[in-house]
């Protein structure tokens, strides 16, 4: 028991240290639709969470150029919430599948932005059926004192399929109705089973 207590305490303390040590880290995540139709355009968000005093950022994106093609890169709303910004969309390379050095910075001596939000919106065109990872890399985040902010990059992926083989989209309302019907049917069945059998 004593050993278990010590182990639990140790694990808890380690978890605490991990949380404390990661307190200034931010997550950079790619949010992409699970599947899109070939030939369509769609957008991918690059979001940040856990930002503290973010003044500027820079990163690269990578994708499968045989499946996707970048159309444009535009600024998200997060950094601009702190004041005027200077945005560099980056260099789009649809041959090698990259968007290099997308960057944005606040202007003037203002504080950085904290919290979570959208950094960049990338518009892709779905070329052919297939799966493409959308990886974020070379992330550089700096605060208003130009100190580097630790970050974790979370990539995304998207499946491109032709419309005929696309999985039907599930409407939440329909899902609820179906579930309601199913639950109702089960309830009826249970009530029937629970009813006492009458002998002839």
């Amino acid at each position, binding site marked *: 028991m004593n050993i278990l207590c010590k182990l639990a305490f140790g694990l808890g303390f380690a978890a605490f240290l991990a949380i404390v040590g990661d307190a200034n880290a931010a997550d950079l995540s790619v949010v992409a639709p699970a599947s899109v139709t070939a030939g369509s355009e769609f957008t991918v968000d690059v979001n940040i969470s856990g930002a503290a005093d973010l*003044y500027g950022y820079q990163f690269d994106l990578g994708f499968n150029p045989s499946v996707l093609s970048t159309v444009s890169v535009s600024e998200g709303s997060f950094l601009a919430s702190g004041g*005027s910004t200077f945005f560099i969309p980056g260099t789009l390379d649809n041959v090698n599948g990259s968007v290099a050095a997308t*960057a944005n*910075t606040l*202007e003037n*001596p203002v504080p950085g932005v904290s919290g979570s939000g959208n950094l960049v919106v990338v518009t892709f065109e779905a070329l052919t059926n297939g799966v493409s990872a959308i990886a974020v890399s070379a992330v*550089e985040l*700096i605060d*208003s004192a130009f100190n580097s902010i630790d970050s974790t990059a979370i990539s995304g992926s998207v499946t491109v399929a032709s419309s005929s083989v696309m999985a039907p989209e599930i409407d939440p309302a329909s899902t609820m109705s179906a579930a309601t019907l199913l639950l109702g049917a089960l309830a009826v069945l249970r009530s029937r089973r629970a009813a006492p059998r009458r002998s002839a």
Partner: protein
Amino acid sequence: MRRLSFSIFLVSSLAAATAMAAGVYPGANFFGAWASTSIAINDGTNPLVLNTTQSGPPQNGVPNGLLAASSDSGTIAGVAGQVSASGVAHAGFLGGAATASGCVTGLFQQPCDTSSATSEYLDQFHLTGAPDGTPIQVTFTLTTNGSVNGFGSWSIGSRAGDGFFQVDFSSSNEPGPVVNSIIHDTRSWTATYIVGTEYALTASLLVGTSEWNCPGGSEFCGVVNSIALDLTGSPPLSSSLSAALVVPNPSIRLVAASGYNYLPPPVVAVKGDVNGDGLVNCADLQLVKVAFNSRRGQASYNANADVNGDGVINIVDLSTVARALPVGTTCP
């Protein structure tokens, strides 16, 4: 018709030019370690060499003023005078004197205007014994040991209305425009001079001396604005800029000539001032953008845009400049 040949060239070695001189006078008046001069008077033993040299690390804020003035009597009258212009260093020849207040008055009594670079850049020489039709060749060569943003200004002639001559320009490696023209004319350009490359600009002149209005009558007066280098930004420490005048014909006398050079005025380093104009504005941010994501050694790398000097131009440099923008500034 007699033949007169001038060779005015910028050389990187003072010693080489000095060795050509029949008589060499040490710099009469120069200031700071960046400048030195020697002047050889045309005493009949040719060639005559007038040389000014600037080399070594720029010493911002140290005025050099007039280096020397000479005459064929052998006297050298160096006059201390600060000739300053923002961010430009010159080497060349100047006839006349500089006042202590910093204005230049040459043979042609150029108006003293410290606010105008053109009156401060005059490099003049005044020769006797150069008759009509005298062909003259003027050659500038320039070697830098670093890549700098170069601003070149060239004009040769006399005061407006005093005369003209045909100039055929040719060049070697010179990035500036090279065209034929009839003087009174000026050539100027902006270019980047590449490490270790020698640049030369040659002008072949045909003097119409009878139309000149030089003191003493039938003489030749020339005005040469030599190559100027804009050394703002990141001047390469080992760059040198020098000038030499050689007159090989003993019958042609140098009445007066002088060279001057001066250093850029003190440049107060402003963090984020990429283009070195003393301000931080959208132009600086654009320069960082152009060079963004480049590394030292790459063609698009701009050392000035590498604000923190780490060899890569990235978000730190961009944000440093952006943060230094005056409050309220928004750059597109």
